[in-house]
């Protein structure tokens, strides 16, 4: 008996190792493939140079341009990639599989940038600024997801909440001005959060279905109103836009200054909310209780935490965060609402949350990666690379799939995630 048990244990242990090894091998093979890609497709002939501008001539401190010899750089990049890949492939990668994959992808992006800019010039500062701007709705969507999933409610409805926030921002912003629109967008996001909580906590509806339904409902409602009402009454869809605020001194820091300190309130708001949420979830008593509800609701209940109320509160808060993020689409950028203008950002936010391992800071970092992919695609259209623009437009989505499939292997959601809790 004992022998049999030991055997089974060893066998399953070995099986685990084999699985891990296979994963590392696959990662290694992928990276060797990427190295070949860099070498063969992204190879640059002759002595062409890629010029990256680090500052504008009008800035307080002007940095010299960063000039990279394109050909040699990509040879080095391919070599490093091949080395990392071979190491994973041969050793079965006992350590740092995910880390080297991430590093490898970063090198790939750099090589790609150098290849695309070879013989031309490119403003790095501008792209970083755009990265931050584009990361905002994704980061806020991801943060909304973190708040909900930490109390074990899967929120697929983030997309719908963003859309509702965008719509309300445009409508109420046109009527009441920017701040009124912002408050209304947050309130409507919160209302949908409360509605989701009611559906999944009180009425115990399947959480995914509830989320999909809210998405369909918001899409239907906002499209209906915008084609039925906004088409005739245009002044209802013409909201003021929040301008960028320049924070003195800090915004003069080269490269990261404009990225972090010369933005509108949505960027500052997202950064502050991420900080608050991190402090709240991991350093306060009620944050601990919320996480307990997500991990083991029965135990939390036994200790006197009101599971239902905790879920209601956090999902509503998540909805408010998503509503704020949604307002970015209208009040933070163009001022008018278009049908389905969020274009899947909420789902990318969800992916950012998973990539960020259910941590607010992680979600922000992941959102920056997606924002980078998004702004890269915009800037590359200007550089006129031979790649069709449709494929560049796909890149954030492909990146999401790769991230969700490849890097999340080890991430663990809250234990009770997605399960309804029935009080006995």
């Amino acid at each position: 008996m004992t022998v049999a048990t030991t055997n089974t244990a060893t066998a399953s242990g070995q099986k685990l190792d084999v699985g891990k090894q296979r994963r590392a091998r696959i990662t290694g093979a992928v990276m060797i493939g990427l190295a070949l890609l860099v070498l063969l497709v992204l190879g640059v002939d002759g002595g062409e140079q890629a010029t990256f501008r680090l500052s504008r001539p009008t800035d307080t401190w002007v940095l010299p341009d960063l000039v990279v010899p394109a050909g040699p750089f990509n040879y080095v990049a391919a070599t490093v990639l091949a080395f990392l890949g071979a190491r994973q492939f041969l050793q079965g990668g006992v350590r740092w599989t995910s880390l080297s994959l991430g590093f490898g992808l970063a090198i790939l992006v750099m090589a790609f940038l150098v290849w695309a800019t070879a013989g031309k010039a490119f403003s790095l500062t501008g792209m970083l600024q755009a990265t931050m701007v584009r990361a905002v709705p994704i980061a806020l969507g991801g943060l909304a997801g973190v708040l909900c999933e930490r109390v074990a409610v899967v929120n697929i409805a983030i997309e719908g909440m963003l859309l509702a926030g965008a719509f309300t921002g445009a409508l109420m912003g046109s009527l009441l001005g920017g701040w009124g629109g912002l408050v209304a967008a947050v309130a409507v996001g919160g209302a949908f959060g409360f509605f989701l909580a009611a559906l999944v906590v009180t009425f115990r509806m399947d959480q995914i279905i509830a989320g999909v339904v809210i998405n369909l409902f918001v899409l239907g409602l906002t499209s209906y109103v915008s084609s039925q009402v906004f088409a005739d009454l245009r002044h209802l869809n013409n909201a003021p836009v929040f301008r960028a605020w320049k924070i003195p001194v800090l915004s003069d820091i080269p490269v990261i200054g404009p990225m972090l300190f010369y933005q509108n309130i949505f960027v500052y708001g997202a950064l502050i909310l991420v900080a608050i949420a991190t402090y709240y979830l991991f350093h306060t008593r009620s944050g601990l209780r919320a996480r307990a509800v997500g991990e083991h609701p029965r135990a939390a209940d036994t200790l006197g935490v009101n599971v239902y109320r905790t879920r209601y509160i956090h999902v509503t808060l998540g909805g408010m965060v998503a509503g704020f993020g949604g307002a970015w689409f209208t009040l933070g950028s163009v001022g008018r609402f278009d049908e389905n203008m969020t274009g899947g950002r909420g789902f990318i936010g969800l992916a950012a949350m998973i990539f960020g391992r259910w941590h607010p800071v992680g979600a922000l970092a992941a959102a920056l990666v997606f924002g980078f992919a998004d702004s890269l695609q915009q800037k590359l259209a200007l550089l006129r690379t031979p790649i069709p623009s449709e494929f560049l437009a796909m890149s954030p989505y492909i990146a999401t799939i790769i991230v969700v499939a490849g890097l999340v292997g080890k991430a663990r959601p809250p234990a009770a995630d997605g399960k309804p809790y029935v009080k006995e």
Partner: protein
Amino acid sequence: MSEKTDINAEMNRLLARATRDRSDIEDLVVVPVFAVIVALILGAATMLATGVDLATIGKSFVALFVGSVGSLNAISETLTAAIPLVLAGLGLALGFRAGLFNIGAEGQLLLGGVAAVVFGFSFPDLPFVVLMPLCLLAGALTGAFYASIAGALKAATGAHEVISTIMLNLISYRLLDYLLRSPWIQKEGRSDPISKSVPDNAQLPRLLDWIEPNLRLHAGIFVMLIAVFVVYWILFRSKIGFAFRASGENPDAARYAGMHSGLIIVAAMASAGALAGLAGAAQVLGVLDRASPGFSAGIGFDAIAVALLGRSHPLGVLFAGVLFGGLEAGGRQMQVDAGVSIDIIGIIQALIIVFIAAPLLVRAIFPWGFRRTGDNHGGKGK
């Protein structure tokens, strides 16, 4: 003593069985009927809130009715709209049964439709009996391939299919734009993204044009009925269907019973994608003649609602698809007659699913119509 307990237990068991039958009827008939009624009322309230006057609302509901079942043309339109909804809905239902929430029907449908078009105009000289089925097959295979990407990722790495299928949808829109602009697909002499037309001998023939030439009902309805039967057979009579359902109900138990969960996931996704691809192919071969950006018109998302409304049962999907087809056809009539935007139909559809998926909510709104049982918070909650 022990005998008494046994009898009590036996009685309880019998009672439970009897009440379950009753609640099955409630679940299958009463809840959907209430759901549709409440959704229509709330739809009217929405129209009222956006400044549509009562007379127009009345007119639009008449138009909704007349446009869906009021004439032979209306019925033909309803069934025409139902064909892709039922086909894609069957695929989603199959996925739901296997525990997979496939949101990617839209993308699978788009690529399946494009594949059918491309195959059609690439071999215009083949006879009808060969070409038309091959076009459908091309659509189904492409859909199956595209969906199995998400399935394979889930099986190999655990990537959640909801996110990966949504991403595949977004990718498919861009891919479609690219394909429709590439010279071997784009219609000659056009600068906008639109494909060449399907040759006549690849089209699904119209069935009722001998009565009136503009009746659009096409032979895709047979494809749809066959698919309902085949999916029923797969789900409830075949070994693979049992494996789908087992791993949907309890993945761990299925794995311990020796089923290969990874293979089942890929197979279920592929069959779901095949049906969605078939829906796209039927749509282009029967109605549209060509592919253009967004030719799916959200059918892939409406099909989610159809599958949920039909309780993931092939016959339920058939009825739900016809209902949604009717809403679609009636909604178009409504837009023409009453000037109310067809987007209102989207709201009504979403509300229907809310009430279907949360029977407790319907019971809370309509306490009458349901027998009060001790387990009022029941369902499968436990």
